[in-house]
């Protein structure tokens, strides 16, 4: 697979604070790549270096095989906090920003129509950005990031603070664009969003502490759960595995799915009515960072 981003030995300090420590990773073209970490882990700092806003202390960044300075028109960024001009209308914001990419006149109008259809922005186009709701503003941010049809879209916590409905709409749009070959790099605090990605990197205090596909991470860091129905506690106890017993069911924690299969094969009489669930991304995160992430706040 072709790599769209290649980062090697990247480091950045702000005075005493080592925000990013020697991280390396690459992103495949057309993939959805998630970048996870608690507040202050160094996600935004990495993104700033990725789009050329910060110069790394060490390390190299390649986007589309070049330094990010040279491929600015291939990258679209939705910043963690909105950076549009609050007093100006969405239309004006897009008009001026588009001009930086050389998109003006008819080309601008055409692209504006496309995006406003895609993101359903018709009614907010002529309203000042400062007067929009959080979700509407996010739509404007995304329209701005997509305006020049980038091949890489970087989203820094795009859905924090949005209602589930708006979140879904945004994901639908991103999903559609990905089908056309857009690569998406995302940071989020919502584990279910990360669970859909092709590759996940988890960083803590500026270091990569785990990475892989969601499946790999789940297999590596979480246990499977087998829920049994209609069993006696004493039968379960005999298996010698950690469990939780409740009146109606019993939960067994098993290393991984193959061990579970083996166990079931050896105990056909016990496993009559059961289901196997894999660990969740939340559990992965908890296991590797020792911290829990919940809707934008780490505890």
């Amino acid at each position: 697979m072709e790599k769209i981003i290649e980062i090697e030995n990247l480091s950045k300090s702000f005075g005493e604070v080592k925000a990013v420590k020697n991280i390396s990773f690459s992103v495949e073209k057309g993939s959805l790549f998630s970048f996870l970490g608690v507040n202050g882990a160094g996600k935004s700092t990495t993104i700033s270096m990725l789009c050329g806003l910060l110069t790394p202390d060490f390390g190299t960044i390649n986007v589309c095989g070049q330094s990010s300075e040279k491929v600015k028109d291939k990258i679209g960024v939705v910043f963690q906090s909105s950076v549009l001009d609050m007093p100006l209308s969405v239309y004006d914001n897009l008009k001026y920003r588009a001009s930086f990419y050389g998109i003006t006149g008819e080309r601008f109008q055409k692209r504006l129509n496309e995006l406003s259809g895609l993101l359903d922005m018709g009614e907010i186009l002529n309203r000042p950005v400062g007067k929009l709701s959080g979700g509407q503003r996010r739509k404007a941010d995304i329209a701005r990031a997509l305006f020049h049809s980038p091949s890489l879209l970087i989203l820094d916590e795009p859905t924090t603070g949005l209602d589930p409905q708006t979140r879904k709409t945004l994901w639908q749009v991103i999903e559609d664009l990905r089908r056309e070959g857009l690569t998406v790099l995302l940071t989020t605090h919502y584990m279910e969003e990360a669970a859909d990605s092709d590759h996940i990197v988890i960083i803590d205090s500026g270091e990569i502490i785990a990475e892989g596909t969601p499946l790999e991470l789940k297999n590596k860091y979480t246990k499977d759960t087998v829920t049994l129905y209609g069993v006696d506690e004493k039968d379960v106890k005999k298996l010698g595995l950690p469990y939780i017993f409740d009146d109606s069911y019993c939960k067994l924690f098993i290393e991984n799915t193959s061990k579970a299969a083996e166990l079931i094969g050896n105990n056909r009489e016990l496993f009559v009515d059961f289901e196997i669930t894999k660990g969740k991304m939340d559990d992965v995160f908890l296991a590797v960072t020792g911290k829990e992430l919940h809707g934008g706040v780490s505890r």
Partner: protein
Amino acid sequence: MNTLMYITLRNVKMFFRDKGMFFTSLITPLILLVLYATFLSNVYRDAFTSGIPDFIKFDEKLINGTVASQLLSSLLAVSCITVAFCSNLLSVQDKANKTVNDMLISPLKSSKLALGYYIATFFITVIVCLVTTAVGFIYVYSVGWYLSFSDVLLILADVLLLSLLGASLSSVVSFFLSTQGQMSAVSAIISAGYGFICGAYMPMSQFPEGLRDALSFLPFTYGTSLLRNHCMNGAFEEMKNIGVPNEAVASLKDSVDCNIYFADTAVGTDVMLFVLIASVVVFTVIYVLLNVFSKKIKK
């Protein structure tokens, strides 16, 4: 070229849409108007009246016209600088709320970004000050008009030149500012202090000698004086026409800073003009160098 036009338009629009910036820029001129309405105009009226020898008969209109032209010159001297500073605060605001990042991730050249602020500041200042000039002319016309056509042209040229001075100096100052706090501190200092040090609230001729000497090193001093000369020239000529002795007119001119002394030598209007043009050139060159230099460091 097209991009430069768009970024400049954006900056100009931001200024007029951002009520905060727009009204801050009008604070100093408004203070000045209030001072005139309450007592300054009486002070000047008395000074001019007593400056004309008793044996000469004169029309009240002459005194009114002289006071009004004096007000006009002060108003313009102040506005050209304070409006420029306030409008250039946009560049600081963009840094403070990270909007500038949104421009830096685009292919927009940083030289165009810097130039965009400079040109926009100049345009805004010229627009605001030309409106002020027009209103001022109407007022002067209604109380006593002694300006010749060439005076009018010279005043307009002064406004352009001083706006350019304001734009270039404020660009240099804003270059070093990057937070909201610094921004309000500077705008407060300029709004409160500039009217005073440029001799608008009170003629510099009444300042203690030490302060006056210090001010003679500042280019604005010559800007104020140039405007005074061009605004009041007609009125003083009229005084001479009705028989006021040259010495009496000269001392009046001294009292309102039409004559400025650098180390006890009178500075002619041609020298004032030169000082202003040279200052514009120097500040502009500094601004360009700062931008070129900072870009080199970042690389």
